[in-house]
């Protein structure tokens, strides 16, 4: 029968991998989402077609399937070795959530009232200036609450990386459980609490962004 500090000290070994995957996935998926979201409102048919295809493929299949696919297909099929499994995990999570979040980017840009675009044209702003100074600043505010929700989703998704052999929180939990069966309730409860503690700042961020996005908008 292990004591709570015992269990905790075992689990905490996986904290580094979980946080690393979380932070890298957030950075990569945000970049992917911005690029893909902007591409989808492009006037170039080829660009919208290709990104549309990417988005639908990754939203239409399951993350866990993609994770397995990448971890087996990249080395086997294309002979690509990313060096460590961390990058396979980050790639799969980022491509998946990048696709989901690109839809928020696209939706928010399209939700900016068309009068704003017309006004920018009337003011003789270039296409780039219009995006940079008029559309995006207004769209970002609308994106933020949903973005916060997706950050929590990404945190939850990081628990899947133990399935492809990464040594994250859940991996150490399963290891501990396999040798101390009677402690398994404590192990998994403690894991849930640890994930929840990591999620708390993200929840707070989402709440904050909800109020930020509402502030000063006349039409609500």
């Amino acid at each position, binding site marked *: 029968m292990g004591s709570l500090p015992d269990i905790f000290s075992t689990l905490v070994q996986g904290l580094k991998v979980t946080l690393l995957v979380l932070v890298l996935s957030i950075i990569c998926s945000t970049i992917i989402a911005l690029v893909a979201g902007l591409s989808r409102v492009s006037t170039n048919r080829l660009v919208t077609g290709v990104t549309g295809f990417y988005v*639908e*493929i990754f*939203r*239409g*299949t*399951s*993350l*866990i*399937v*993609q994770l*397995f*696919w990448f971890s*087996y*297909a990249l080395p*086997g*099929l*294309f002979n690509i070795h990313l060096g460590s499994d961390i990058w396979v995990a980050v790639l799969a999570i980022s491509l998946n959530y990048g696709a989901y979040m690109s839809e928020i980017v696209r939706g928010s840009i399209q939700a900016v009232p068309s009068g704003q675009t017309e006004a920018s044209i009337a003011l003789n702003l270039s296409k780039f200036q219009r995006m940079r100074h008029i559309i995006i600043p207004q769209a970002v505010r609308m994106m933020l609450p949903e973005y916060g929700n997706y950050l*929590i989703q990404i*945190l*939850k*998704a*990081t*628990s*899947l990386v133990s*399935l492809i052999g990464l040594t994250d929180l*859940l991996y150490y*939990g*399963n290891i501990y*459980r396999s040798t101390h*069966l*009677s402690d*398994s*309730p404590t*192990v*998994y*409860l403690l*894991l*849930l609490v640890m*994930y*929840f503690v990591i*999620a708390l700042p*993200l*929840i707070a961020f989402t709440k904050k962004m909800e109020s930020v996005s509402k502030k000063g908008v006349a039409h609500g």
Partner: protein
Amino acid sequence: MNWSWTVFFETIPLIAKGLWITVGLTLACYLFAAVFGFFWVFMSRIPSKIVRSIFGWIAVFVRSTPPLVQLFFIFYAWPVIPVVGVSLNPFVAAILGLGIHFSTYMSEVYRSGIESVDKGQWEASTALNLSTRQKWTKIILPQAIPPTIPMLGNYLIIMFKEVPLASTIGVVAMLHIANDYGSQYYKFVEPLTVVALFFLLLSYPSAILISKLEKKYNRKFDKKAMSS
């Protein structure tokens, strides 16, 4: 490039068998989540502020922690707990685990629907001296739920894509069959691609259907709002 079309076509019928298990499990989880979602709504309307905030936090806790860990808790840890612990078969554990996780999302959908019902409807029910039960079943819910149908449909698709998590506790559905085949013949890419295609085949048309439904409902309810 190590791609074999023979393996690809060979695995299609194998994995198709698992498709029905995945679909069935999705429907079972969804049904559980849809019913249990009302539990959270009910708890959030209890007069006692302490009870409300306790259940509110439990719902947030369930929603923001990984469903995979919750699944492991129910499957591996629940049987060990003294007195209340019972061993569950993987199917029941998956229905409970994923069902409870997604019920917290469903309750948010219900809540948004209930909050969108006009204040006058509540006042009118009170004025007409309707009982609480009549108020909910005849006035509020019939107006609150239909506008949320597209959102509820979206969650069905989301759950469909989360159900493969159940393969980790031994539910033999698509993903499990693919992994078994892979470890037997050391051919992973083809069966996993078949699994991905099956997911796409089902979820993409449903997503289109739901966005059509959404447009239809938006028109319908906008019209109503305008004429009232």
